[in-house]
């Protein structure tokens, strides 16, 4: 097959601009505006912190910052996995299934109050392996059966949730292994170990995105799947690996969640999907793929966590809090992408 090098020429965003919306260019498209847009999430985060601090100075206390770090640990780890999938232009809805599977395996294999198992840290390995396997399954279903990731992962979500509810018998089982619980209760340099684990997950995600072939291929697929394929990227392998990597991060998050709560129950993962997708999108990673990355997601997670913490600090009614979160998603998406340039809005 011969490839016409002309069609392969990367099309920059600026070149795609049509004459029709050139009018807007002056206000919305300048290089400076583009840079501003890149840093918009970070600016939002800083402004948010300043506003909350003005309203309630307790916010900036070291104790509270540690609490925010602690609350961000699980969502950050989850969102790291989710970032790769969204970068690829896919979506992974199986977050809650994978997380509950990991928490279930961990609790049932480590010391608990329902059976006599006591495998200690082997349980952690098994939990992460189980969740990774679910991720790989997602990838295989998508690539081999050619089912869109939305449906494939929706199915796997319920498979995972069903299995873990069944294994837990619908009740909460307590995690009694003190060394695993220490992830949440022990501190190193003032921060709970869970925060350090999440930081390690973040570093790992950075390495994957910026220093491995996988990371580049994921971005390439998200930017334009056909182009990536023509450039010799093995789509199937990259997709399966990416879903597997996501499953790995969900597994780590599951272990952290179970360690924090000291138990695993059927609803341990409830609401985590929303939180993960929100964090990724708010951070500025485009749902269309190919734009953004784990650094954006870190900012996104912090925005979401700081906002949740801030609303409680400010005493905003629980009835209003969800509304604010919804508004924030729309605002963030509106800010992060140049919507006017989009040709199609599905």
């Amino acid at each position, binding site marked *: 097959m011969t490839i016409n090098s002309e069609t392969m020429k990367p099309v920059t965003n600026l070149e795609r601009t049509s004459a029709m919306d050139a009018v807007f260019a002056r206000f919305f498209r300048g290089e400076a505006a583009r840079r501003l847009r890149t840093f918009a999430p970070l600016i939002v985060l800083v402004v948010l912190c300043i506003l909350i601090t003005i309203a309630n100075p307790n*916010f900036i206390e070291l104790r509270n910052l540690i609490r925010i770090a602690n609350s961000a640990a699980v969502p950050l780890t989850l969102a790291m996995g989710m970032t790769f999938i969204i970068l690829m232009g896919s979506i992974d809805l199986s977050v809650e299934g994978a997380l509950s599977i990991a928490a279930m395996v961990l609790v049932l294999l480590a010391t608990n109050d329902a059976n006599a198992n006591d495998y200690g840290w082997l349980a952690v390995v098994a939990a992460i392996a189980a969740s990774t396997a679910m991720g790989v399954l997602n990838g295989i279903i998508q690539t081999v059966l050619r089912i869109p990731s939305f449906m494939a992962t929706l199915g796997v979500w319920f498979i995972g949730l069903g299995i873990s*509810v069944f294994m837990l018998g*619908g009740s909460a089982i307590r995690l009694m292994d003190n060394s695993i619980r220490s992830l949440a209760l022990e501190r190193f340099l003032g921060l709970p170990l869970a925060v350090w684990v999440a930081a390690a997950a973040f570093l790992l995600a950075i390495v994957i995105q910026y220093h491995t072939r996988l990371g580049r291929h994921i971005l390439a697929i998200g930017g334009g799947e056909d182009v990536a394929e023509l450039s010799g990227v093995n789509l199937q392998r990259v997709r399966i690996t990416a879903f597997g990597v996501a499953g790995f991060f969900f597994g780590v998050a599951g272990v952290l969640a179970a360690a924090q709560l000291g138990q695993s129950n059927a609803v341990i993962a409830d609401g985590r999907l929303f939180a993960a997708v929100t964090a990724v999108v708010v951070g500025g990673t485009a749902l269309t793929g190919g734009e953004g990355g784990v650094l954006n997601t870190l900012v996104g997670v912090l925005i979401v966590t700081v906002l949740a913490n801030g609303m409680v600090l400010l005493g905003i009614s629980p009835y209003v809090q969800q509304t604010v979160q919804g508004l924030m998603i729309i605002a963030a998406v509106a800010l992060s992408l140049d919507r006017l340039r989009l040709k199609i809005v599905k």
Partner: protein
Amino acid sequence: MKDGKTLMNFGEINRRTLMIGAATGLAVSAMPKRLFAQGAPTLVTSIRSLSNPYHAVWKTGAEAYAKLVGLEHVTLVSEGNSEKGIADIKAMLAKTGGNMVLNSDPNDTPDARPIVEACKAAGAYVVTQWNKPADLHPKDFNPNYVSHIEFDGISSGKQIAEILFKTIGGSGGIIALGGQISNTAAIERKKGLEAALAENSNIKLLDFQVANWKSTEAFDLTSNLLTRFGDEIKGIWAANDDMGTGALEALRAEGLAGKVPVVGIDGIKAAVDAVRTGEFACTITSDPFWQGGIGLALGYNALTKKFDPTSEPPEHREFYGKVVSITKDNVEEYYKTNVESQPALDWSDLWDRVTGQIRT
């Protein structure tokens, strides 16, 4: 236990579950008729699941009562599937020719009507618990629909609040964690808290937050509230034990477990253990062991004409049962009799736990 319902409904539209349900129904109807002795009635318990500890204890209570009166006992499990629950009951009615007593925790509110109608048509005696439509009344199905039993969320919410207030010495600030905003049990329990607050002006409700019955949400909310109020928080009121344990873990992460008492409702094992260690001030339980026995006892006594349901006062036909509170004073005893072994109840006084007629 009402709050566990959404979770259990998860499998409702699952075709496989439906097939298993149909198969079980067939299996029941295929049982030889002579299994069921002609004269003696069969005691039947219909519950949601055997894998959740609440209903597992319910079943042991039912079996203890069956042993006490020397009758055969059958447990039907709906697995959260209303169709299966109703079909199994109808199959049992056909099998026993109506010579049976049913104690049912209907899977969903509307299920109570077809269950009661089927029992009335077959001449069986039935007691329902927790779920029934507001316009379905035992007196309209005399004498077969003996009673309906619920537990008063207002008095439960108030009771744990009062124990919490006493534990923190009658004054100071507390935070409260509620269940889903639109859920009846959540609304009632919150009303109970408000009633208790109205009577104790020295207690200040610092904030009421909604944690949707979940320990995960309670965990995050509690850590945020600890920042906002810090040492002002002297106690935590939670509308169920799951949220209570989430709050407790947030306290533990701050080294406050045992210093700030928590109260909850449901009597789950984690909460009972926490009462033993002094981290929970109390939890309360509807006592599923008693519930498993009393439904059968009411039905059996009505069937054998020991009492006539039609002449009982309204507060014996639709009533709130008495909850059992587990505090540090009785937790060791409760643990010994309910967790390590079976409680000794004889259900001879049918009405000793009636606390009043259900509000309409």
